[in-house]
């Protein structure tokens, strides 16, 4: 009773504890069967070096454990009379390590959740769960927890005593359970629950194709689901509050355990743990945390060093992992050719990631997650320390930092009076490669890690062998380690290395070859150490026995540790942006004034083509275009005699630089956003710059009639995703018609719609729903004052996007081919009151150009694609010219990473097919796409006041024999064909240096043996066009 009261005292002030701390062998509630076990657990560990907290060390200290907690710690601690003493001379005590991102004790099986299209069994269907099987917020890890001592032991060996466990399925994974890594029942091991909600960008299970619950199957969809779920959580709270206040005459909101469980996380009262992986997904997590004011810990797969500045600026808290890759295979020239510079550099830099986080001042914890073999953890941690992470910071990241995040600094993480007795004992500095963890104490319970002999027999002894016929004298030197000593005998002047030595307690057994003392065969000795003397018996080769004695003469001296450690080789090359080939160390500078002189300037504006003209740029904007422009002396002057200048080319239909393109599950996914998944590392950005492209409109794919929201970017190579997004972009959305959306190529489509008839009805129906949604809000907002307890409508991001279209706040880019479907959508739009701004592809636009014009549409088409599918069999290369002649605004787009590198000569096809005048044709890839994206006020032509986005060509931009020499964006030179040559050489040099580093030091690789985690990737292949 007294004991329990003491424990109760420890809990005071805690609101997060769901379970009681138990240190007895059985739970308090369990009846005792048989005899009560009441062995006291009071231990005084003396003469130890105690690392109370990172940087706070007490030499020669005593630590007293009483039951499950630390009763005293210090240099002058009175040892309680009831304490069992253990002498820990030469040993070090550290707080037990804490891993806040674990799945210890969680169910292992990865069964497919959900099943047949008409339901079937799924655990999400029992009870009022969330409709989406990836939203498992109400699940409690504690309820699933099954201790597994084999795994626990593995973790204890790495120094861990405490973990925060989450199940590994779902986007929302439920409440984590804080568990101790001892032996016992779940009730003894689970210390707390409800501390943090697990989340992930990877739902980590698949449903059968065609099930509506497949949603989301893309990273973009995952983020949209998270966004809607947090909105739903707020709504759920408000709706129930309103309903409870005035239930009469109102429908009750649905009951949803997941939304209920998310309340404290959505309010920011409790933290969520977000499993990200690479630097870009960390930035995605940061955006979500900002958007919903979440308290968030973000898991870093080891790539955070690639965007330290942005991560630091966001104030993110990271849980970094130590999954350092093996050296890539560069054994042959050909093998090397499959390895990228960024992979070589990742091998070189990854062990420095934790150190770099620390230097950048980012708050982080360290987790053993991601290691293929958990026993590689300590080794990798020590590598990280060798490679720049201060030992104290390493220790903090595994003790005080996680304890503080858990809100348990007063119980865990340091070795102070009253804290839970979770600690480890080592035989040296934890971060030294030779140090062993000897013991682990968890809730005061002792777990032996290394089976160290209790007796150290090492030393030099005088030796006497006493036989009937002879007496030999000399010495025996016992050396080596305590648990594996070696022996050397000196008998009659001969040096003999023992064949074997075995030590058990004070028993010593030695065997050695007798030839050097003139005896055939192997001689065996067994003796008992008693004080300073060993005495025992021996047997000659012939089986006859003799006696022997040895007397301690000199203490064992550890040989000066040879400097076995290899010199530390830090990473060779600085990080560039994006990391790998062709990355930049900094954004290109923006000269105050740039003057490009004597060029043929294709303005794509009212001035047409100007011969021998100059272009003046100030602070990234076009200041003047014309003849004989004067510039200040400080101006950067480029003589472009014989060159041609065009506006930066713009691609109105692109799928580069995104980590996901299609959320292809539902027929409407207007809530998903390409802007959530911009991939600033994508090499196509640079390759397209080299072809004179400066902007791309990144569209969602064509898997659904109403697709996702699109994102216009500038190709500011080196910027992070937010820096690529164009500031002045207009909101857009992708629609699609025809073969792709009716899934003509799927043999067993089960998703509505399956025909062009159905597509027309589907879109009409969705807009009707959006109108109803808008009306619902209008009514609510109008009567809210009169009836404050009216249950509010739920915000629906899917329908809100359609409302935005109807309000002309969002424009449609509609994938379309056949004239019938084009006309059908125009009629739906006319009827429902919205406009289809841009028809994209629109290969039969030439057949209904007059109707498109009347509706107010523009056309963004392929120059000359046809016959790749049935619905484009009537496509003609005259399409652009004819639509243009009828009066539509026409652009040519790429929809293709390769084609986007030569949009200038795509424009020439309007000259070739249909005789469009040259300056007019160039507009198909400059001002016209800008107009279609509603950004023509800022870009698309070389006119005063616009962004200084331009290209220098060595000939006419319309000539197939010309090439792009420089590409400028915002008055900054992002591509230069000469600089590119230098970069190509640099790539070759850096590759060669890293390959040599690998070849010269093949052994210098961590033990976990793989390439390291892959950045978050789309779950399905992009389906474009």
């Amino acid at each position, binding site marked *: 009773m007294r004991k329990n009261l003491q424990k109760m005292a420890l809990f005071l002030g805690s609101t997060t504890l769901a379970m009681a701390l138990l240190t007895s062998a059985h739970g308090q509630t369990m009846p005792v069967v048989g005899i009560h076990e009441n062995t006291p657990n009071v231990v005084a560990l003396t003469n130890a070096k105690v690392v109370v907290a990172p940087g706070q060390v007490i030499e020669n200290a005593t630590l007293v454990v009483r039951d499950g907690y630390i009763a005293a710690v210090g240099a002058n601690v009175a040892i309680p009379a009831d304490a069992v003493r253990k002498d820990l001379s030469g040993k070090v005590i550290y707080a037990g390590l804490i891993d806040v991102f674990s799945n210890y004790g969680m169910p292992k099986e990865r069964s497919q959740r959900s099943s047949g299209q008409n339901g079937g069994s799924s655990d999400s269907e029992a009870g009022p769960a969330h409709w989406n099987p990836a939203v498992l917020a109400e699940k409690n890890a504690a309820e699933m927890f099954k201790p597994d001592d084999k795994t626990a032991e593995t973790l204890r060996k790495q120094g861990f005593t405490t973990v925060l466990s989450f199940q590994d399925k779902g986007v929302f994974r439920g409440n984590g359970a804080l568990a101790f890594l001892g032996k016992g029942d779940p009730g003894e091991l689970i210390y707390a629950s409800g501390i943090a909600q697990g989340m992930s960008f990877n739902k980590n299970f698949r449903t059968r194709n065609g099930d509506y619950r497949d949603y989301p199957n893309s990273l973009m969809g995952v983020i949209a689901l998270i966004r809607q779920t947090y909105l739903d959580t707020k709504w759920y709270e408000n709706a129930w509050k309103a309903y409870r206040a005035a239930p009469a005459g109102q429908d009750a909101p649905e009951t949803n355990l997941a939304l209920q469980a998310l309340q404290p996380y959505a309010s920011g009262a409790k933290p969520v743990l977000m499993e990200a992986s690479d630097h870009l997904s960390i930035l995605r997590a940061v955006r979500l945390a900002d958007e919903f004011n979440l308290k968030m810990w973000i898991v870093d797969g080891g790539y955070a060093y690639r965007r330290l500045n942005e991560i630091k600026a966001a104030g993110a808290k990271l849980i970094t992992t130590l999954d350092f890759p093996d050296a890539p295979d560069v054994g042959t020239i050909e093998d090397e050719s499959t390895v990228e510079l960024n992979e070589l550099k990742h091998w070189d830099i990854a062990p420095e990631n934790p150190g770099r986080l620390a230097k950048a001042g980012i708050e982080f914890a360290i987790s053993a997650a991601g290691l293929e073999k958990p026993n590689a953890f300590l080794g990798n941690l020590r590598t990280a320390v060798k490679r720049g992470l201060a030992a104290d910071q390493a220790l903090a990241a595994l003790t005080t930092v996680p304890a503080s995040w858990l809100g348990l600094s007063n119980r865990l993480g340091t070795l102070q009076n009253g804290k839970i007795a979770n600690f480890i004992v080592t035989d040296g500095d934890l971060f030294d490669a030779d140090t062993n963890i000897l013991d682990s104490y968890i809730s005061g319970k002792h777990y032996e890690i290394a089976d160290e002999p209790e007796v150290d027999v090492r030393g030099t002894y005088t030796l006497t062998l006493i036989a009937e016929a002879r007496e030999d004298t000399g010495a025996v030197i016992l050396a080596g380690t305590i648990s594996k000593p070696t022996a050397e005998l000196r008998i009659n002047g001969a040096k003999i290395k023992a064949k074997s030595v075995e030590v058990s307690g004070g028993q010593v057994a030695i065997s050695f070859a007798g030839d050097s003392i003139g005896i055939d065969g192997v001689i065996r000795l067994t003796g008992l150490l008693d004080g300073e003397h060993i005495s025992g018996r021996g047997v000659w080769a012939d089986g006859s026995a003799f006696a022997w004695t040895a007397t301690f003469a000199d203490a064992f001296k550890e040989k000066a540790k040879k400097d076995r450690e290899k010199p530390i080789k830090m990473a060779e090359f600085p990080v560039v942006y994006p990391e*790998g080939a062709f990355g930049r160390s900094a954004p290109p500078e923006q000269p105050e004034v740039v003057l490009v002189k004597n060029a043929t300037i294709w303005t794509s504006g009212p001035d047409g083509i100007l011969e021998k003209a100059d272009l003046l740029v100030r602070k990234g904007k076009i200041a003047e275009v014309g003849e004989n422009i004067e510039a200040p002396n400080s101006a950067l002057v480029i003589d472009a005699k014989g060159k041609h200048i065009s506006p930066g080319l713009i691609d109105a239909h692109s799928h580069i630089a995104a980590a996901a393109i299609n959320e292809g599950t539902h027929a409407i996914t207007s809530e998903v956003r390409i802007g959530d998944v911009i991939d600033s590392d994508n090499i196509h950005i640079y390759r397209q710059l080299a072809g004179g492209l400066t902007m791309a409109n990144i569209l969602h794919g064509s898997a659904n009639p109403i697709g996702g929201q699109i994102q216009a970017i500038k190709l500011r190579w080196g910027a992070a995703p937010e820096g690529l997004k164009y500031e002045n972009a207009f909101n857009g959305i992708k629609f699609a018609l025809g073969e792709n959306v009716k899934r003509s190529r799927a043999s067993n489509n089960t998703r509505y719609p399956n025909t062009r008839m159905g597509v027309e009805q589907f879109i009409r129906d969705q807009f009707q729903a959006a109108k109803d949604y808008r009306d619902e809000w209008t009514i609510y907002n109008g009567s809210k004052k009169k009836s404050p307890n009216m249950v509010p409508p739920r915000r629906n991001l899917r329908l809100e996007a359609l409302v935005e279209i109807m309000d002309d706040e969002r424009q449609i880019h509609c994938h379309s081919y056949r004239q019938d479907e084009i006309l059908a959508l125009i009629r739906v739009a006319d009827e429902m009151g919205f406009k289809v701004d841009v028809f994209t592809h629109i290969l039969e636009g030439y057949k209904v150009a*007059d109707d498109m014009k009347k509706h107010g549409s523009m056309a963004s088409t392929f120059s000359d694609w046809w016959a790749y599918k049935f619905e484009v069999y009537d496509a003609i290369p005259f399409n652009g010219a*004819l639509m243009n002649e009828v009066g539509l605004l026409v652009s040519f787009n790429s929809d293709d990473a390769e084609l986007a590198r030569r949009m200038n000569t795509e424009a020439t096809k309007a000259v*070739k097919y249909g005789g469009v005048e040259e300056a007019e044709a160039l507009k198909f890839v400059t001002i016209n796409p800008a107009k279609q994206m509603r950004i023509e006020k800022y870009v698309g032509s070389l006119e005063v006041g616009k962004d200084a986005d331009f290209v220098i060509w060595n000939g006419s931009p319309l000539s197939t*024999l010309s090439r792009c020499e420089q590409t400028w964006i915002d008055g900054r030179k992002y591509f230069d064909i000469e600089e590119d040559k230098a970069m190509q050489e640099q790539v070759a040099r850096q*590759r060669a240096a890293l390959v040599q580093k690998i070849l010269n030091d093949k052994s210098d690789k961590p033990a976990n043996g793989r390439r390291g985690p892959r950045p978050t990737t789309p779950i399905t292949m992009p389906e474009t066009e």
Partner: protein
Amino acid sequence: MQHKIKHFGCLLILMGVVCIAVIASAQNSAQIPTPPQAKAVALVGGTVHTLSGPAIENATILFDNGKIVAIGSNVTVPADAVSLSIAGKHVYPSIIEMVSNLGLIEVDAVNASADYAELGDINPNVRAEVAINPDSELLPVARANGIGMAVSLPRSGLISGKGALIQLDGWTWEDMALKAPVCMVLNWPRMTNFNSPWVRVSPEQQKRRREEQLKALSGAFEQARAYQKAKEAAGESGVPFHAVDARWEAMMPVLKGELPLWVNASEIKQILAAVDWATRENVKIVLNGAADAYMVTDLLKSKNIPVIVGGVLNLPSRRDEGFDSPFALPLKLYEAGVKFAIAGGGSWDVRNLPYHAAKAASYGLPVEEAIKSITLYPAQILGIDDRIGTLEAGKDASLIVTDGNPLELTTHVEKLYLQGRDIDLNNKHKALYKKYRQKYIQRGHVAPTDSE
């Protein structure tokens, strides 16, 4: 059509028969094959790019019975010849596409319209020409831009079958086949693992698959050699009857070095493995695709292995490669002295072949070399340069008349002759253009031209 009218208005009167054919075809979207050349034709006053020597300005090129009779500044034009003035125009050999599925596919995504992929891994006996659809709408589209000839290839499995060089005009595939077979197609197994994040096949599975394929390939050649030996021994005493095996029968010309293997190999490991294997098997190969060929130009030169560059308008095959690496490949082969041709590789977009060559030229390949890489060099690799590829007396009169350099997109191909036959340059696209212009003329959105 527009341009034809503009530039050849007077000629149309002279060539009334052709003119009627053109109009008729424009109305029903089908072109009528041209009969064999009946009358000598002299193209007078243009610049003739013979590609066998320097261009000849203000020249006359005279052809009869499908063959070139004379080229030069002082060619006497027979009285009965049709003489056309082409002042200011240019004459080049017809362009040859080396890698296509023309005639074997109509619509990519419509499986029923595809005939290039037979079942199974070993199909040396199938031949492309017998499945060529002469009425494919794709053929007139390609030839309208001067591509008068193309190699059409099967492309599945390991040994896909035999490719054929066809002329893109004729009533039947027999009319069209200019040389068949021209090659045996071999797809070298992929030698490196895919490690793209979305590839779910494990590296071990990929390795096993590769080993199976390499075994199947060497097995096929072993069996073909056994068959060859047995056939050669026929009639000798003690040699019993051996039944015909169509597959190995088809391999005989390959084993004898009479028919080259076109080995599709792009990646360096594939190229090295293929060259090593061909050396040991003692067979003649042409590398097709060959993106990595620049790494081993010396080897290819020393072994005299020609390369068909599988498109210039390609992405670099590795992230670390320069953006211009595919653009620069032809130049590197040229500088190293490796025989090469440029292919576009496709079906509906064959018309863009000249712009692949143009891209190589804009990144350093001399323009004339770029033109040869789609005319003369293909003919040489196909072993038919005694008939096509250059403009010389005695060779086929297969040529184009243009208003400029065919590598420029702004250039128009105004005439195509195949063996002296004046080919209809109309096609489905021009017909639909004409048709829908009428819609907008009817509705007052577009002003009619003089001819409309």
